[in-house]
């Protein structure tokens, strides 16, 4: 996964006094699922609009396989398939008609567009509705068709803006599985507010806020590096508890050690505490502290996100 498919160099986009994207530089590798995380108004959609060539940056550039998107050929643009956050369909065309239409607009032959369309309808469980007009579909079906529209011309790069928004759990799982199956032969870039989705699906995640890239790494690495850390709740045998002793034993292993006497619980917080669980328990044993039960709450991507972007409400 080291071939760079998309590269952005110091992308800047301003709307009057507001700088929506400020010096965004990143690389997206072939075959990976790349996530954009950020609060509302962080610049995610602006960034992906520039990645797709819909928006011209005020400064910087987007390179697709080394070719500049802005001023590049039409072929460069058509390497990208875009699934917008809102449902974008022709209400009075059937599922099959709109897929065939878009496929041919992207230059596929009539036969190939039809084959591709039928396959996508099948893959996304829309085959039975292929002759239904889009306006008659349920919200979930429209969303799946919306996704199919981005894929009909078999693009090398698929950009998805909130692909799971508005989906019921069944559809969400179906779409998630489909995206994961895509990643073997396509590069997928997605934006999402759903941390669980990002954690489960993406290979690497870029967290942006105020138009700036705050972090870019794998979810696992971010959870180990950023945030409040994992929390280990160690239930102790009833009796006298030595908080100072525990703190001393875990020095260097835990960021925070707190005793809750009423609950007979020692709360230990540390980055990658889950990975160090054996060491922590051994250190406590050496200090004569015997746990009767251990509960773990791992650091989540949401914790990482909130640590980086804060808890203040946006927009």
């Amino acid at each position: 996964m080291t071939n760079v498919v998309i590269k952005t160099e110091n992308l800047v986009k301003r709307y009057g006094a507001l700088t929506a994207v400020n010096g965004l530089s990143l690389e997206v590798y072939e075959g990976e699922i790349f996530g954009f995380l950020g609060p509302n108004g962080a610049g995610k959609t602006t960034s992906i609009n520039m990645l797709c060539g819909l928006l011209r940056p005020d400064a910087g550039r987007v390179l697709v396989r080394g070719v500049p998107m802005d001023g590049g050929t039409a072929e460069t643009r058509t390497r990208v398939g875009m699934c917008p956050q809102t449902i974008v369909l022709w209400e009075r065309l059937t599922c099959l008609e709109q897929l065939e239409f878009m496929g041919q607009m992207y230059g596929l032959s009539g036969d190939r567009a039809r084959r591709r369309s039928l396959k996508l309808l099948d893959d996304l469980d829309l085959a039975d509705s292929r002759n239904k007009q889009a306006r008659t579909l349920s919200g979930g079906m429209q969303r799946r068709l919306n996704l199919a529209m981005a894929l009909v011309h078999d693009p090398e790069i698929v950009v998805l803006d909130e692909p799971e928004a508005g989906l019921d759990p069944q559809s969400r799982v179906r779409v998630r599985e489909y995206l994961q199956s895509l990643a073997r032969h396509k590069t997928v870039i997605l934006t999402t507010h759903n941390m669980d989705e990002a954690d489960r699906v993406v290979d690497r995640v870029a967290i942006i806020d105020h138009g700036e890239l705050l972090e870019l790494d794998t979810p696992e690495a971010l959870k180990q590096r950023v945030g409040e850390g994992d929390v280990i709740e160690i239930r102790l045998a009833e009796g006298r508890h030595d908080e100072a002793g525990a703190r001393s034993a875990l020095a260097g292993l835990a960021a925070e050690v707190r005793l809750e006497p009423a609950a007979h619980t020692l709360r230990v917080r540390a980055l990658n505490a889950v990975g160090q669980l054996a060491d922590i328990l051994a250190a406590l044993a050496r200090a004569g502290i015997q746990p009767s039960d251990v509960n773990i709450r791992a650091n989540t991507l949401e914790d990482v996100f909130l640590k980086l972007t804060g808890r203040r409400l946006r927009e």
Partner: protein
Amino acid sequence: MLKTALVFSKSLVEMVREPQLAVLILLFPVFMLLIIYIGYNTPKLATHPVLVVGTDHPGAAALVDWLRAQRYADGRPMFNLQAAPDPAAAETALKTQAATVLLRLAPSPDGGAALQATLYGDATSMRFVTASTLLQNLMVPYLDAKAGRPEVVKITEQPLAVQGAQTDLDLYSPGMMLFAILMLTPQTAMLVAREVRWGTLRRLRLSALRPWQLLTGVSLAQMVMGAGLVAVMFGCAALMGFHNHGSVWLAVLIGLLVSFSAIGFGLMVACISTNDGDALNIGGVVTMLQVFLCGAFFAMPPLTVFTVGSYEIGALDFIPATHGLLALQQVLISGASLGQVGFRLALTLGLSVVYYCLGVLIFGWRQMRQRT
């Protein structure tokens, strides 16, 4: 060209699946045609129902017989003269429009042999005005001749056209047909603005579709609609008694040329509309302005802007529909040939191309270029 053909076929499918819009756009001009038919369809060659009082006076019966014998060129009688049963019944007949004129004949007050004729009727009714003028034009020379007075002047009417408009319906029908075609302006604007609102235009932009490919596809579908509009308007007008004296194919060609310009205006309207509702409203206003300014309802003053050689160029000459209407009227009412309306057709085409290209350019610049 393939992309244009794809957009064309998609637009046609959408129009077919949304017939309410086309029906609404068609119904309005048909409704106007119907109003003209009902309200203003004053037959210029109608046989006017006339009630007569005083036929027992000397010379009256001969006058009535003479009037009864008067015929139009096509052989139809000019008047249907009936003796009025009594003054009250005659007044009722006038009020209910069972009769157009009450002709009261009486001896001359000077006691001479001449008759005195008085015409009664509703002076606000075009039927009365037409019938009474016709009666006067016939009776005055007749009575003068009977009284031995010399004929001072002889007036003959010579219609400008080969046959000329025979009814107000004939006169107004070309304008109403044009009105129907100009309704393509709001429809085009709405369809294009809807692509913007739905976001499908963004999708199409991603496929590297060029503005002219999109707009030509949409426009061709609208021109099919325009041809349909002309055909339906023709059919409706014919059902209402419209007398066509020219080539239907030539009229359809003129209709298509005007629809081309209406679509161009529609594209420009789409550029300044934020949604399809806006587009319909603004497009409707633009259509009504064109309809009135081109003279579809009544002739407009020339409003000369400048002069080229001996030709005065008016502000309304810049509206393609002005020339389209004149050409349509000349073809349908006067039976003009392609050669006779060629100049107007060329102007309609030239102006339509200009407005269409302007529409494409502005739309491409406003809606389809990469956003900055």
